[in-house]
């Protein structure tokens, strides 16, 4: 195989057996296709996440990105690194969208070492800029799972007990080059209550299975790019808080956004504390110590108060009162015309989903969309507004 980096044409791509995907299973159930199992797990995800569980809303997540030689593999287009970084960008945005009062940091690992790309922080922009830059990194050597986890622990272990400590590893390589026995580290992680999840880009590796099982995380291996995205998005939702995590009331400040006029004497003195370099006139002022910040959410660097805005909290609200799961039933049972209430498309799949409160019918895709993004049933809302 030629190893030229630019390969966008279909005929230059890998040897794919597209016809085999279409294969009909004549022997009936003897070989249940993986697709069906996947479909069920997709559904399961929706139903599983519901119920009244305490969720760890304040999250501290370290994202570990493998930048080893194997990331040059071109099974994701144009290569694994570029594709993953792009997906991670959307993940970062989505993450802060859904978890406004959480923080995230990125670690890269290559050539048997681990490096911090960004520190644990609540600002999506900084991460995204760093990720965009990282596209040009050269992929080298082997990753080190041990070193990256170790690096992540260094900061995570100082996080307060009522927040969640999480590590998400995007691992492309099938090998890891470690300076010490990783089993010991897994024990440390467990005692520190760090939850480690792994998304594998090539195949199931034993040590990751053990790692995730021991620390209570999840382990998935991607099938293709869209599956990869799906798996990443699984980590957007806050995980249920472990019962042992501390329970406490948290002081929070809700600063107002004030745009000072140039003539204002006081404003000139204040510099934005968060982004440092650039001067700005407007900003959020900590209700306690009046330090100025350009962005929320943030932890006040002067007095340590968590500063959020009310809409942020409101956005986290749906996690607490999730939309009920829709009931699944075979399409044949539906007497009326078979159209999805949301997208108006014809219902072709063998099962349909109906909202338990307004009995509207939806297709799988809309069901997922409603539960993942809208968080409320459009038909119920419609009925409410038109009594």
């Amino acid at each position, binding site marked *: 195989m030629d190893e030229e980096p630019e390969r966008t044409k279909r005929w230059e791509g890998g040897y794919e057996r597209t016809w085999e995907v279409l294969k009909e299973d004549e022997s009936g159930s*003897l070989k249940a296709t993986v697709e069906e199992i996947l479909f069920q*797990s997709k559904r399961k995800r929706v139903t599983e996440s519901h119920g009244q569980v305490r969720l760890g809303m304040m999250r501290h997540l370290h994202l570990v990105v493998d930048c080893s030689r194997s990331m040059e593999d071109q099974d994701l287009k144009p290569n694994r690194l570029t594709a993953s970084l792009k997906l991670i960008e959307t993940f970062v945005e989505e993450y802060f969208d859904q978890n406004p009062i959480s923080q995230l940091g990125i670690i890269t690992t290559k050539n048997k070492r681990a490096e911090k790309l960004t520190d644990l922080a609540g600002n999506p922009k900084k991460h995204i800029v760093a990720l965009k830059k990282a596209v040009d990194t050269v992929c080298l050597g082997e990753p080190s799972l041990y070193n990256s986890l170790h690096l992540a622990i260094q900061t995570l272990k100082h996080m307060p007990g009522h927040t969640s400590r999480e590590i998400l590893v995007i691992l492309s390589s*099938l090998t890891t080059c*470690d300076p010490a026995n*990783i089993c010991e580290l897994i024990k440390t992680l467990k005692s520190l209550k760090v939850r480690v999840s792994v998304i*594998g880009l090539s195949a*199931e590796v034993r040590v990751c*299975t053990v790692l995730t099982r021991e620390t209570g995380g999840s382990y998935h*291996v991607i*099938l293709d790019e869209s599956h990869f995205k799906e798996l990443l998005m699984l980590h957007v939702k806050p995980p249920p808080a472990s019962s042992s995590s501390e329970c406490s009331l948290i002081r929070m400040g809700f600063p107002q956004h004030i745009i000072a006029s140039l003539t204002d004497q006081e404003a000139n003195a204040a510099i934005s504390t968060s982004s440092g370099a650039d001067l700005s006139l407007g900003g959020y002022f900590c209700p306690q110590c009046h330090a100025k910040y350009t962005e929320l959410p943030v932890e006040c660097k002067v007095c340590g108060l968590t500063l959020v805005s009310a809409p942020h909290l409101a956005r986290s609200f749906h996690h607490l009162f999730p939309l009920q799961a829709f009931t699944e039933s075979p399409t044949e049972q539906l007497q009326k015309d078979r159209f999805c209430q949301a997208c108006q498309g014809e219902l072709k799949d063998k099962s349909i989903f109906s909202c338990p409160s307004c009995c509207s019918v939806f297709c799988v895709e809309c069901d997922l969309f409603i539960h993942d993004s809208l968080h409320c049933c459009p038909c119920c809302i419609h009925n409410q507004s038109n009594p």
Partner: protein
Amino acid sequence: MLNIEGLLVHFPYDYIYPEQYSYMLELKRTLDAKGHGVLEMPSGTGKTISLLSLIVAYQKVFPLEVSKLIYCSRTVPEIEKVVEELRKLMEYYSKQTGESNNFLALALSSRKNLCIHPEVSSLRVGKEVDGKCHTLTASYIRAQRHSDPDLPVCRFYEDFDAVGRQMPLPAGVYNLDDLKDFGKRNGWCPYYLARYSLMHANIVVYSYHYLLDPKIADLVSKELTKKSVVVFDEAHNIDNVCIDSMSVNISRRTLDRCQTNVETLQNTIQKIKETDATKLKMEYRRLVEGLKEANVARETDVYLSNPVLPDEILQEAVPGTIRTAEHFVGFLKRFLEYLKSRLRVHHVVQESTPQFLKDIFDKVCIDRKPLRFCAERLRSLLRTLEIADIADFSAVTLISNFATLVSTYSQGFTIIIEPFEDRTPTIANPVLHFSCMDPSIAIKPVFQRFQSVIITSGTLSPLDIYPRILDFRPVTMASFTMTLARTCLCPLIVGRGNDQVALSSKFETREDFAVIRNYGSLLQEMSAIVPDGIVAFFTSYMYMENIVAAWYEQGILENIQRNKLIFIETPDAAETSMALEKYQEACENGRGAILLSVARGKVSEGIDFVHHFGRAVIMFGVPYVYTQSRILKARLEYLRDQFQIRENDFLTFDAMRHAAQCVGRVIRGKTDYGLMIFADKRYARADKRGKLPRWIQEHISDGSLNLTVDEAVQLSKHFLRQMAQPFRQEDQLGLSLLTLEQLESEEMLKKISQIAHQT
């Protein structure tokens, strides 16, 4: 509780695989017919528990029809595994029926594994333990002790002898450790206790050799009841076990040791003659009366017959020429000298047994008849002379066994004398191979004596060849497939390199640079995409050495080592087990490893690579036996003449069963998954492919027949990703895992009937 054609079977698990049900069905039919069976079922589908639960149920319902189950397995760990399954079953029984269990089941192994005598058990080597035990427990030693109480004694044996025989072992399931514990608690010798308890145990689990090796079978198994069911598990190599147990190899060293043995014998005889001449006279008288007793026993069908002790001998008395001890020793000496002269050859000699007998008569005037009594006569002499350490006399025992065999069987054996090994033609190392070519000789008594013999394994294809080479008529022959909720095995035949060079290990291309390079690139590419462990098999040590050396020169090894560590199996057992340990460690902590090993070696037969220990196995080449070996040639000739099996058919069959064994190492259950890569274009041919077990064969699609390395890599990547998706028990339920209700549904029963493939 299952209903198998009217027989209620307790099955200790909540769920059952459909093929297990089907297996039990066939097994029941075999037992009903009181015949023999050949059953092939993939490993990891619960063969052992199916066998046990059906036969135990059968024993409980028809205690008069089947009174004993003899379960033969290969290694001690396998024996232990069977006992554990049995324990689970028995616990389930007593929980279900509420009554305490009245079954006695036990495992038996050698003294080495069972001895609890503090001094004896500290010895490491099996032979030493046996010898030492013998010096403490032989009957005449114990008799001597009456006059001389200072002699060392094994109190465990004494205690057992005093009271142990009156008190049968209480019902229950005993593995080797349980026996030892029981022995320690009561102060009884566990080994002799187990051997004694064999007679009334309901289930016996032990090694093949206790039934097939005539020397051991005679001691241990000969009184087992006729109404037994014998199971040979992992029996794909049973013909070789049979042959090995009947073959004798005599080197110059053996003869030298034999010489010293004979001298010791002579001295002892001299001594005894001076002190206790009556003893020898007694023996003489006994020999005159002949071996009548043994004959009576065989006629009344008490014993399993011993193929070394042919029927004719029993009807006659020991011939006069060897009746007295001195004459016999003289006779042995002459025989020994003859053998020595035969070993002084400079070219290879091959002759049949009648030729050998004629020659020996011409040269040293040894008749056929005394030769036939040689083994029996020696045993009698050793008993009379009260020689304690039998282990020292292994050489002379070997020679006398050879004498008996050579004079008894005019067919089925051949004698080959090689002055040197093929590999080292300059070093003289003459060996006389007396090789058995007919496995049916050793196993014949087993088939004749026991009402049902079941031969089973994960790889027995093609099924019809086993009855032919073992010479028996089975009532059932069936091969079962593995029902799978997801296709968890992926056999690929890689026939070409990326440069279209045909990959093959055949002799002509063995040194071909291009082939070796392509094999290297196959392993390298695989090492990059397969997680954790890969096992690679070569056809021989020599071939492996050559290839690895070439890879090293080409820098391929270095590239591979970036992805995974490399471990190599060597003929040395300690080194290999060390390599295995490190290999597993590397798989465990995420570094990944490759084990390079050899088909027919230790790794290919006994070691399982479950889950991450083996995600892929690569078979480089077709593992044919070394076809230039004279023993093999003789055997092939014999098979052709006697059983009408063509040489090529047998060679292919033998190669394919070993290949199947090798690749079968990775799949050890339904939740396991693994790639099976056959890297040789010859596998694509129908005659090779058709000899793979059905459960592998049915997953080889036409599309995966003659792949290039790249294509194989693409397919493997796809397969590994699919397999890494979450797989829960619920996904299996109803397809490959059944509850009782599901099992009883009409539709499922119909499906089950297709699982067994009758031939």
